[in-house]
């Protein structure tokens, strides 16, 4: 019944070529009657957003595939890190997001090839870069996406030809972000899908392709891109495979390639990199890979990120504490102007999400200042965290200062101490007892907040974890290790906190503000 109805609708929509459904829709779709497709819409010309709608070659392909089965389409936009986990957890029927078919990925997923991939370098036109091999890249700053085929291919160079002068890799969440680094001059070369390279070079005349379309390695053909399926669901894979054959035969495939200037990606022109026989179907089950877990846990790859995380925490808190003292003193000062500035500071930094602030310092500031201020990710991120935390430290220190009985300050002043000396010698030591415990908590919170810096590719613990599971798909195992690292570090900080608090626990009760010290009689 549904079948007939949708056919009728298609007829009404005046698509005579598809009056009937050439391919039978598979059973077991995430949403019956709809192909649900996971994609990352930041990857033009294959998957992106145009006029608020998903657009691109991949999108058009999936729409055409759905038409052959008389199905509707639903595109679910996720980050790269969300693609494969979403597929595993049955959020989508398949992935279409310019995904390269790699042996590693084929261990866990099935792929139906639909596009001939390959990679290409992009540089600034003024530099006239053109590279025939990786060797020319040694020592240059190369922007790309972590965990992708491209990154994997290029990283091999640092173990080979570029061992002496390694390539300085900078990882970004999308090809767009990677290419933006070229315009900001914080990278020399972006390493991207060839499709994106030609797309962006048409869009931004100051950029140009800086290499031929190449494969990951010189000795293999350009890799294929595929629609990714769960190994357990052969029916869907088969139906989509048939649909692609229909589209190839009826010329739709060729027309779509031409529409997006991607003729070079015709999957029929490649030699013989066909996926090998599939692994036994239905074998996929979520199991805890204890070997992967322990290998990751005891590997040294988290040492440096852990130090980075600690370093960022310390420096950001230092900035915050200095700002907090300044802010608290200003907030309690006589000057209306100073108090106004502090109010504005608190209002802004407590009102804007810290993630927005982080990306602002990193990406928006260079644009705003015409590239006069272009901070490295580590500096921008640490600064953003410190400035944001400064607002909270201002409040903590301010409440510490006002918790000290005004009589203490008055007595100090009556003994001839200047305002500064009374603050330093009498008020501050007593305020510290109130300030220190919450500051310890802020330290621990800050340690965890540093994980947000993964958004600007600072190599801290969480970012390192995303890199690793981006390659081996061991989400649970890797994230368990990441959690353990955070637990260890927060545990350490808690011990330090307890020690510091004990040291400041002198034999004193706070001079509590109680009965009025000041009586006008």
């Amino acid at each position, binding site marked *: 019944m549904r079948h007939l109805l949708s056919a009728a609708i298609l007829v009404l929509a005046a698509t005579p070529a598809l009056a009937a459904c050439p391919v039978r829709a598979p059973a077991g779709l995430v949403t019956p009657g709809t192909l649900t497709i996971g994609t990352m819409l930041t990857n033009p010309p294959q998957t992106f957003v145009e006029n608020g709608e998903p657009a691109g070659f991949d999108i058009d392909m999936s729409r055409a595939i759905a038409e052959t089965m008389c199905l509707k389409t639903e595109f679910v936009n996720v980050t790269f890190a969300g693609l494969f986990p979403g597929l595993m957890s049955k959020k989508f029927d398949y992935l279409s997001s310019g995904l390269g078919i790699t042996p590693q990925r084929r261990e866990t997923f099935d792929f139906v090839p639909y596009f001939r991939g390959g990679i290409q370098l992009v540089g600034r036109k003024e530099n006239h870069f053109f590279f025939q091999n990786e060797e020319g890249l040694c020592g240059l700053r190369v922007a790309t996406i972590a965990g992708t085929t491209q990154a994997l291919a290029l990283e091999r160079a640092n173990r080979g030809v570029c061992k002496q002068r390694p390539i300085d890799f900078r990882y970004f969440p999308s090809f767009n972000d990677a290419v933006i680094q070229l315009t900001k001059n914080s990278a020399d070369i972006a390493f991207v899908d060839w499709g994106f390279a030609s797309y962006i070079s048409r869009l931004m005349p100051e950029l140009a392709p800086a290499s031929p379309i190449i494969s990951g390695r010189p000795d293999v053909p350009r890799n294929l891109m595929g629609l990714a399926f769960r190994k357990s669901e052969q029916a869907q894979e088969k139906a989509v495979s048939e649909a692609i054959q229909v589209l190839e035969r009826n010329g739709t495939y060729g027309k779509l390639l031409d529409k997006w200037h991607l003729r070079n990606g015709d999957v029929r022109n490649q030699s013989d990199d066909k996926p090998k026989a599939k692994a036994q179907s239905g074998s996929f089950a979520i199991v805890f890979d204890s070997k992967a877990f322990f290998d990751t846990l005891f590997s040294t790859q988290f040492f440096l990120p852990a130090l980075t995380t600690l370093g960022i925490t310390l420096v950001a808190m230092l900035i915050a504490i200095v700002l907090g003292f300044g802010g608290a003193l200003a907030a309690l000062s006589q000057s209306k102007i100073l108090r106004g500035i502090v109010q504005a500071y608190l209002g802004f930094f407590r009102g804007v999400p810290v993630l927005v602030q982080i990306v602002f310092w990193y990406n928006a500031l260079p644009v705003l200042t015409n590239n006069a201020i272009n901070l490295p990710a580590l500096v921008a991120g640490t600064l953003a965290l410190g400035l944001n935390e400064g607002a909270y430290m201002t409040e903590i220190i301010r409440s510490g200062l006002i918790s000290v009985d005004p009589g203490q300050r008055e007595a100090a002043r009556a003994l*001839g101490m200047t305002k500064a000396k009374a603050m330093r010698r*009498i008020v501050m030591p007593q305020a510290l007892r109130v300030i220190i415990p919450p500051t310890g908590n802020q330290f621990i919170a800050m340690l965890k907040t540093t994980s947000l810096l993964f958004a600007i590719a600072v190599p801290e613990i969480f970012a390192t974890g995303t890199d690793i599971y981006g390659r081996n798909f061991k989400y649970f195992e890797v994230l368990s290790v990441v959690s353990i690292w955070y637990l260890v570090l927060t545990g350490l900080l808690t011990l330090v906190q307890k020690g510091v608090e004990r040291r400041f626990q002198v034999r004193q009760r706070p001079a509590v503000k109680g009965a009025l010290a000041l009586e006008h*009689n």
Partner: protein
Amino acid sequence: MALVEIRDVHKRFGMQDVLKGVTLDVEAGEVVCLLGASGSGKTTLLRCINHLESLDGGEIKVAGELVGYARGVDGKLEEEPDRITSAKRARIGMVFQRFNLFAHLSALENVTEAPVQVLGVSKADAEKRALDLLARVGLKDRADHYPHELSGGQQQRVAIARAVAMEPRLMLFDEPTSALDPELVGEVLETMRRLAADGMTMILVTHELAFAREVADRIIMMADGQVVEDVPPASFFSTPQHPRSKAFLARAMRPA
């Protein structure tokens, strides 16, 4: 020249006139008691003398110097820098109703803090003198105690030692026994009595009439922000002149 010269001092808190033209001299070595009902302005006057409160009119000189102000070229008073006022305050001792001992310092450290930090006395000298002063107020064995480990009377005696350690030329007492339990008042008064006997110039706000009568050289009766009577204690307590003085004494002497 009097040690303290108060000339036509005015002070307002918001809409309220607290001091309405107070003029008063205190000679070196004198003990002067300020009496008056609550709200008569005696504490405010005391706090104006060491510039814990600013003035809205008139002027106050201590040892011939304005405190907190400097006379500008046009003859008007201008706020002087904090550093200079602080140096002048160092020579004016003050004892508070609620003691205000530094809560994070021991009794000894309370007494040495300002001599070391403000006068630049060496730590060893300051401690030697502090122990001496603590002995004089009967608290030598409490030197290492923190304020919360001392009784109110003991705290106030430490506070007096702390003020005396600065070798002030004048001491201000702001109801020094009002916050004490009755049985602790005596020890503090005894300390003050000895200070007076040593020749210290003292201005004190108090409700201890017997003490005022015994120790004071003059009684200043204040009402509604003005001095209404300024006489020796003998005549004040036997033949008060001003109606407000009579009313005050009648209320104070009424058996409880």
